[in-house]
């Protein structure tokens, strides 16, 4: 339809159709995204989810028809209201059927810290009401995490700080580059998170450096926050902030202040495991010492027990031996065999000369029988006591 020659645009002879021309214009208009600031008016939300509105520049008496399609509107996390100061990102476009000129916004941002803060507070309250910041729903990192997904910007020191502080524990890092600055970061951040959602990772790390409240707006986006809430593995948020903690950090399972802290968090269980491994030789030595002590104690107890039992057996043998001797000494048969005799008077054992008078009868028992005798004479021992002893 057109030709370029020496920097000049040449028109072909054949005229363009309206639709061809509109297509030509739209192609040219779509080349560069534009950011527009103005005040919202005449808002019409359709059941389809698309929203039509005007953006006014009161001072210059200028107005622009605007539209934001359902998907983008849901993503931007802003409910457009009349009078709101908005910053739109998008491209202008002519709608062929009506010839209507509109600005097609892909992103809507609130302008002014007051408005941003109000939106932040409202969403924070809503999410808190749903229990999304509750400690109970925070998930623990797996022991010895290995496959890590990282969402951050490839530019700048953040990713280097993170990687440099990650221990040499064989981590496999899947990094997805994303813009992280301002509200425009919402779409790339969502894409990056959704990309990693499909990967076999054990933890997701979302990091960026510190920044102003406005520069962190993407991390207060409802869709992004909910994406992190529903992320299948634990999420570590290392999103720098000053006063108002980004909502993405509040819903994350771990909230750390810097990329370095995020790396240290991942190192923790590895370092702990390594420390335990280093303790193993000491523990083994200690167990060995304990075991040897038990062995010694057992041997001593064993020896003591054996000595005790042996002593008891020996003592019983001695008791039996003594009993044998006592019984032998008291055995009347033995005494009689030795030549002793038992003298009785009228059946009772006589022990003294005084038990008998002369001519009285006595029975004398010897080893093989009994004699009957008569007392003819009594003769008392001299030194009676000594003799008997």
């Amino acid at each position, binding site marked *: 339809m057109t030709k370029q020659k020496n920097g000049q645009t040449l028109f072909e002879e054949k005229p363009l159709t309206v639709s061809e021309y509109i297509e030509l214009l739209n192609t040219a208009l779509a080349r560069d995204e534009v950011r527009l600031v103005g005040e919202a008016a005449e808002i019409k939300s359709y059941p389809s989810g698309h929203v039509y509105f005007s953006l006014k520049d009161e001072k210059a008496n200028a107005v622009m028809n605007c539209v934001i399609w359902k998907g983008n509107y849901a993503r931007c996390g802003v409910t457009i209201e009349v009078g709101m100061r908005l910053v739109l990102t998008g491209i202008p476009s002519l709608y062929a059927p009506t010839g209507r000129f509109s600005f097609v916004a892909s992103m809507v941002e609130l302008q002014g810290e007051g408005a941003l803060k109000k939106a932040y507070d409202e969403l924070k309250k809503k999410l808190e009401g749903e229990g999304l910041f509750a400690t109970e729903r925070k998930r623990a990192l797996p022991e010895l995490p290995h496959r890590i997904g990282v969402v951050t910007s490839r530019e700048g020191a953040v990713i280097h700080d993170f990687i440099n502080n990650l221990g040499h524990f064989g981590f496999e890092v899947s990094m997805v580059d994303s813009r992280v600055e301002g509200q425009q970061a919402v779409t790339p951040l969502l894409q990056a998170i959704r990309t990693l959602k499909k990967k076999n990772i054990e933890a997701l790390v979302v990091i960026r450096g510190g920044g102003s409240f406005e520069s962190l707006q993407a991390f207060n986006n409802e869709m992004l926050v909910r994406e992190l809430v529903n992320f299948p593995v634990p999420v570590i948020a290392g999103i720098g902030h000053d006063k108002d903690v980004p909502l993405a950090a509040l819903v994350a399972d771990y909230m750390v202040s810097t990329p370095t802290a995020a790396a240290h968090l991942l190192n923790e269980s590895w370092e702990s495991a390594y420390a335990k491994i280093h303790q193993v030789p000491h523990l083994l030595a200690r167990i060995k010492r304990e075991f040897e002590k038990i062995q010694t104690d057992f041997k001593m107890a064993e020896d003591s027990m054996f000595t005790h*039992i042996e002593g008891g057996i020996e003592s*019983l043998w001695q008791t039996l031996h003594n*009993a044998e001797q006592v*019984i032998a000494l*008291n*055995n009347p048969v033995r005494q009689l065999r030795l030549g002793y005799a038992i003298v009785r008077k009228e059946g009772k054992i006589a022990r003294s000369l005084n038990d008998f008078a002369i001519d009285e009868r006595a029975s004398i028992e010897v080893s093989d029988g009994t004699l009957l005798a008569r007392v003819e004479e009594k003769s008392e021992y001299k030194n009676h006591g000594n003799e008997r002893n």
Partner: protein
Amino acid sequence: MEELSKILAWFDASEELDVEAALKKVKQAADLIRASKKRLAEVENEFKEIKKEIEE
């Protein structure tokens, strides 16, 4: 052993010598001593075997 102790105590306490009773007690004591020696020898052997097993 208890029975044996009673017999020994009986001999120790007897003042009148009752030959028949003494003979009976001697016989009883001899039987008890024999049985006790047999049982003690068994126990001693058993203990020696256990000790050997533990020490091995």
